[in-house]
């Protein structure tokens, strides 16, 4: 949450992402589709950004590039001081492993695998981490998402919200420089969405940079800044003056509101 005090701090903070005139083209048969036509913005450490846009806006392409799953055709993307343009596939994989925490709409947990093992997964691909440290960090991450009592539960024994919290713990476990969420509340009901957003806001207050890709304006209200994409270009980029507290909304959320919401 941004108060007058920490706003200044952010303004002076270190640039985590620098995106300069990013372009991405896809060749489909004879046709060339220009998904991104020159996107530029920076992200400062500790920001909570929502990237908004309807389908076809280039939002997904942007997400893939931000997540180092794809490379731009033109322009620069500098993540924590590293320009990904010059990196090989394997170097990109290593970057994803240490700098990025992904949260997906459909959780993407491994079935028949306990919560703790799911959270440990990114650390298995990092050879610097011992088995003991892996376990400790996974336990800590699950504690951070308040699932310390569900370590050995399988995904099918957890609710949707709990599964998404395991996924958040998995995104946190490698201590990334940013968390990249793709419609992370898309599969959840309103109340559980608030729970997840409250958790993400909490992580943000603790200093985590968060980039949340969504098409829901409701979600944007929880973030400190909104970048709107349309037809492969940034159309709006503004700091949110009136940030809603998901925790507060959750507290105000009465049980009968479920009913009201469904019928409204």
């Amino acid at each position: 949450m941004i108060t007058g005090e920490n706003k200044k701090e952010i303004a002076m903070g270190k640039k985590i992402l620098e995106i300069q005139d990013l372009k991405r083209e896809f060749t489909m048969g004879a046709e060339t589709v220009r998904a991104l036509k020159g996107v530029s913005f920076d992200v400062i450490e500790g920001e909570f950004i929502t990237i908004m846009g309807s389908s076809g806006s280039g939002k997904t392409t942007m997400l893939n590039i931000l997540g180092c799953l794809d490379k731009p055709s033109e322009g620069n993307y500098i993540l924590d001081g590293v320009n990904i343009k010059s990196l090989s596939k394997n170097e990109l994989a290593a970057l994803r492993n240490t700098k990025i925490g992904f949260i997906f709409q459909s959780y993407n947990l491994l079935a028949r695998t306990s919560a703790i093992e799911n959270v440990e997964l990114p650390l298995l691909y990092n050879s610097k981490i011992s088995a003991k440290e892996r376990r400790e960090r996974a336990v800590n991450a699950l504690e951070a998402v308040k699932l310390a009592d569900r370590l050995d539960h399988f995904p099918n024994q957890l609710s949707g919200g709990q599964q998404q919290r395991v996924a958040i713990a998995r995104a946190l476990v490698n201590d990334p420089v940013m968390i990249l969420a793709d419609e992370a509340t898309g599969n959840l009901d309103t109340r559980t969405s608030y729970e997840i957003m409250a958790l993400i806001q909490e992580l943000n207050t603790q200093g985590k940079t968060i980039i949340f890709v969504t098409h829901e304006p409701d979600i944007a209200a929880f973030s400190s800044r909104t970048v709107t994409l349309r037809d492969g270009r940034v159309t709006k980029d503004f700091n949110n003056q009136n940030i809603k507290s998901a925790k507060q909304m959750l507290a105000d959320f009465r049980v009968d509101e479920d009913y009201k919401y469904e019928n409204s």
Partner: protein
Amino acid sequence: MKIANLFLIALKALRRNKLRALLTMLGIIIGVASVIAMVAIGQGSKKSIQDQLSSMGSNMITIRPNSNVTAGARLDISSVQTLTLSDVDALKKESKYLNAISPAVSSKGQAINGALNWPTSMQGVSVDYLKIRDWPLKDGIAFRESDVHTANKVCLVGQTVVDNIFPYGANPIGQIIRFNKIPFRIIGVLQSKGENAFGQDQDDIIIAPFSTVQKRITNSIYLQNIYASTIDESHTEAATGEIEQIMRTAHRLKAKDEDDFSVRTQAELINTFSSTSQLLTVLLTAISGISLLIGGIGIMNIMYVSVTERTKEIGLRMSIGANGRDILLQFLVEAILISLTGGLIGILLGILASELIQFFLQWPTLISESSVILSFLVCAITGIFFGYYPALKASKLDPIEALHYE
């Protein structure tokens, strides 16, 4: 990635699909178990033939007269008479490798004890013969050098002969029997040897000094065979060459003349017979090898299905930091773990099966270390070979497409 982590990842992935892993393994298990059991049967029958032939004396060498050409006509072997006692003397004098030499003359005839009689054959040999044949006495004593010198009418009888002309458990030692009307005194009974590899009863025999048999029965200076033996089996080949040299010199053969004798070692005989069971082993192994191949194709098939089914998982792993090599190795290790575990179980089952075959069917089986090691290696290679292409396919997936695969 650390090797330990690689195995951990592969093991966890297999654990999530125990039944499928087990079913995939089954092909390998059956393949390996049948290879082990079949080779055990083949090797067992080979070994039992070898043992039977060895019971005739594994370092025995037989010199026989050979058909030579007289006045343009090749003569029948039974009528060829080229071996004489002077050959035996030459061999005794000049050979370095032979430790025992015995001439052999034989005659068929009727052995008679009182009212009982039995058709058998008499073998006239020297005192070395029992040593060459590795044939101990069950009872009594063997004849000596002096018996040979004086052409003494003493003999040793085989168990079959004893059974037929001394049927009521009477002690044959010291008894006089007649063979072709000549009386012989029995001084010893031979240990039973049973049938040889050709199915002949080796105990249906009477052994006497060759001098006695030559003078009293065959009335000929020629020998049917010369038996000899070396100190151990490894010298038989060298001995064969040496014998040929000595014999050619003794028979005054010119360089262009054919040998008028032949030298055969027991080892050659063993090889001839072993080759039959070798063929059996090869056939059985080939059939089992095919089932192992089918098992391998099963692994490949399942791994392909697995890669397709787990596309989303692969996408996730890539998005959280696995590179193509990590994914390739994961699937490769999964395939190898399946094939090696299957191989180990198969080896144990194969050994168990051969023991059961031996126990219930009384077929001789012999589990050879090489077949165990070989089938284990084949399993490892099968895993790598059939696991590689599916693993390569998995590693080449695009993380974005894989993540959104439904």
